[in-house]
């Protein structure tokens, strides 16, 4: 037996007034305990961080094989006490979602559709675009305000945006890549 969200709502709502009122009228502990023990039996648990706002709610991510089966708040978290908001509680649907693209795709100039492409082909093409733009538009030296030549090693033709949604380590790698290539249009959501 497993309890789906709708079953749960039906059960909790049987007092006729939905979850919010139902909480006061009904002892939910047995329901929650049953949901936890049945669903999560034999699952592996991992430490997660909620990917939505910046409160940083720690999550317990339960998996079986290569499938996430449940995500809930970590009750020991000092600044959240285990709670999640509606977005945090929906985190599992970022992974388990039929609308999620799992293939790399290319759209040719003027085309009205995507074409699936191998990842290797994509990387090769993207690297070539970076290389060509850098070769063509790179500026090594420029006059300063006093008319003297200054080494600027700058690339204005490529811009990079994002992201406050990626990890610290990823942000660092992107900074390292962009800056050492000469990229200066280098921004993310904190600016807006």
């Amino acid at each position, binding site marked *: 037996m497993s309890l789906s969200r709708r079953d749960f709502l039906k059960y909790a709502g049987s007092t006729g007034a939905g979850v919010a009122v139902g909480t006061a009228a009904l002892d939910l502990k047995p329901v929650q305990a049953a949901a936890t023990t049945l669903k999560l039996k034999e699952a592996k648990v991992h430490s997660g961080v909620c990917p939505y706002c910046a409160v940083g709610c720690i999550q317990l991510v339960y998996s079986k094989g290569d499938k996430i089966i449940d995500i809930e708040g970590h009750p020991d978290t000092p600044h959240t006490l285990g709670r999640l908001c509606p977005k945090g509680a929906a985190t599992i649907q970022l992974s388990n979602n039929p609308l999620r693209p799992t293939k790399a795709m290319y759209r040719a100039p003027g085309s009205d559709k995507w074409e699936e492409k191998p990842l290797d082909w994509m990387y090769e093409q993207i690297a070539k675009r970076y290389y060509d733009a850098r070769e063509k538009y790179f500026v090594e030296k420029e006059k300063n305000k006093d008319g003297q030549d200054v080494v600027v090693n700058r690339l204005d033709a490529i811009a990079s945006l994002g992201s406050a949604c990626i990890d610290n380590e990823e942000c660092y790698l992107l900074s390292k890549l962009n800056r050492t290539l000469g990229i*200066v249009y280098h921004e993310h959501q904190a600016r807006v």
Partner: protein
Amino acid sequence: MTTNLIDIQNSDVIMATSNFAENHPVGFQWVMKAKERGAKFIHVDPRFTRTSAVADVHVPLRSGTNIAFFGGLISYAIQNDLYFKDYVVHYTNASFLIDPAFKTATDGGGLFTGLEQTGKGGVDPHVATTYKKDTWKYQLDGEGNPKRDLTLRDPNSVFQLMKRHYSRYTPEMVERVCGIPKEKFVQVAKLFCENSGPEKTGSITYALNLTQHTNGVQNIRALCMLQTLLGNIGRPGGGVVALRGHANVQGATDLELLYHELPGYLPMPLRDAHPDLKTWLDKETPKGGFWVNRPKFMVSLLKAWFEDRATAENEYGYQWLPKRASADAYSHQHMFVDMYKGIIKGFLSDGQNPAVGGPNAKLARAALGKLEWLVVKDIFLTETAEFWKAPGISAKDIKTEVFFLPAAPAAEKDGSLTNTMRLIQWHEKAVNPPGDVTSDAEFFVSLAKRLQKLYAGSKKDRDQGFLATKWEYGDNPKEPNMELVLKEVNGYATQEITDKDGKVVYKKGQALNSFAHMTDDGKTAGGCWIYTGVTVEGPDGKLINKANLRKPADDKDYLAHGWGFAWPANRRILYNRASADLQGKPWSEKKKLIWWDPEAPGQEPEKKGKWVGLDVPDFNAFLAPDAKNGDKPFIMRADLVAAFFGPLNDGPFPEHYEPVESPTKNLLSKQQMNPVAKIWNVPDQKNDLVPLGSPDYPYVVTTYRLTEHHLSGVMSRYLPMLAELFHSHFAEISNELAAELGIKNGERVTVVTPRGKVHVTAMVTHRLKPFMIDGKKTHQIGIPWHWGYNGISKGDITNDLSATVGDPTVYIQETKAFLCNVKKGEV
């Protein structure tokens, strides 16, 4: 954030200026906890929300008038002697004397001394101007130290200038400008000021409500000045609570995905100011304060990137960094204007959706169509990835090549995120991502390696920096080891480091324990000095990842120092030396945090005395209160004191100006708008603005967010659970405005500005009320911005309404206050 969410429970008064309960619901529990303990809660917001519903007082204020409100509070605290005198005299620059030639906006018709015209601006009647700051400085004594008057009576003291500057910000003026009835303002001022002082503390929370304005930075300064005046910084229950909107907007800022800096808040070189490393170090290293260490952090960063190729002889590779042509360039808004003009050819949009989420989104989408190529990496197909499918667009006319790479969410990869209280927390990979989905790290490393192959053998000097960078993180090329990346960020010894007795302190390659161990001679490398200490070597030689520590709070450690790692140095409340008085004793027993223990073992065996308490001292732990600078808590400032007088591009004190688009003339001075606001001149009528007094666009509009959706909607509109909870786009319209326009609740309406229009459902509500501004009824509407043309729940793009205008210091847009019209039906 200077403080910690947990610590909000210790506040005696909390003033939320954003919709805390709905936008950061889980953090909001600490406000409720404080209320249970007797705290008063004030909510300042144009709209009545679920935050207002639990407030002791809700204060609706017209969008765009925050400085008038904070200025009123500053003035009230000064005029009624409610500020924290000892704190202000000793821990701030209130006593410092300013150049007598400087005049505040009170004596300058709304302008400070030094405004100069620099050429004609983009938009009539705005003329480009800039401030010459040569009088915005301290008077110095014979030894070059600022002159001070500890009585605060000198007319040129910062305190007296501040008092004079804000003397115009009376309760009557606040009523006229903000639309807050005078009695309500006085009630709030009393409540907030009387709950601050030696025995009590108050906190103020903010989010984008204060930042998205053409005086966004000054809004934050005004808030900080009020908190400093009341002695609310560095103390339990005090602080500035910055509520950030993305899981890693703090971390992405620290690691500096921003045009103007390098990781760890190091200024990005400018062509004219910083031709070489020596000049950069000379100009960017102040004479006092903790930033005297900046050369160590810069050289360590260069070593982290260019490794063995970074040497003293080649300025540690400094010349391989790009130099900016100007400080007024490359920001988000500059980027899309320049993209539209064809300057930018290729674009990577990684985990960001500017086609919906940025200002003037119609301009952004038009700009994407001018690109040669676009790469998007995201979890779902964003409107940016599919801009060529936007309604009304003919795909065959769009020549941009688009590459879409599916991305893995946090649960499918290892890595750390830094939350709004500077807390770095690790997440573990729970499952492999499906299909061709990879982490962003995998993409960056793969791209870098392929590019290095293309550049292999290049003899050009300009390529040598990039070729020097290393991209091997562990043995699995398909999955770079994020703990090794974190170690590079943390910093390590590039060679064996010994102490003066020859004892090995660090082996070659060993992770650094503290940024205090960084050097400017190439012996240490480190990608972001403020993160040092997040990962250290354990006794068994293995890395300890402190971001993954999970020791809960307990009675002895309410701030939970064993849970994750907060930068810098695991300090949970910044500037906490200010929680103690000059002699190092807590200002009050109730508000103690750290204090000087003269009997504690000192730094050396024969010495005694140490800062101890409930937090890691944000101070030299062994610097006695009576030692030189032992009584100066604001260690990041060159003069070690908090700054009321702090020169920004638009003035040393925040001054109220109207938003670029405003329903009223400025009632405070004859200067209508921020004289140095950034207004872009965009071709093809892509950025037309509403002139003052226009009958065509009479209503104020503010944009905002909902609990059930996330920002531009990529991570919520595709999720059935969330799309179901809030399924369609709407605008909140007051009963009064709806009656005037004949609009019923649930009807379709059109919201229009010179930039664009949206069709949405009218939510006619009591939660918004018209403001009385100088006796005139002024309507304001509210509209969320989560929708776009993709996903399960679709809707028009709110940012098609907003304009390309910006704050003069950081160039953030003004999406919290601009003008619109509302029309019945879809027109």
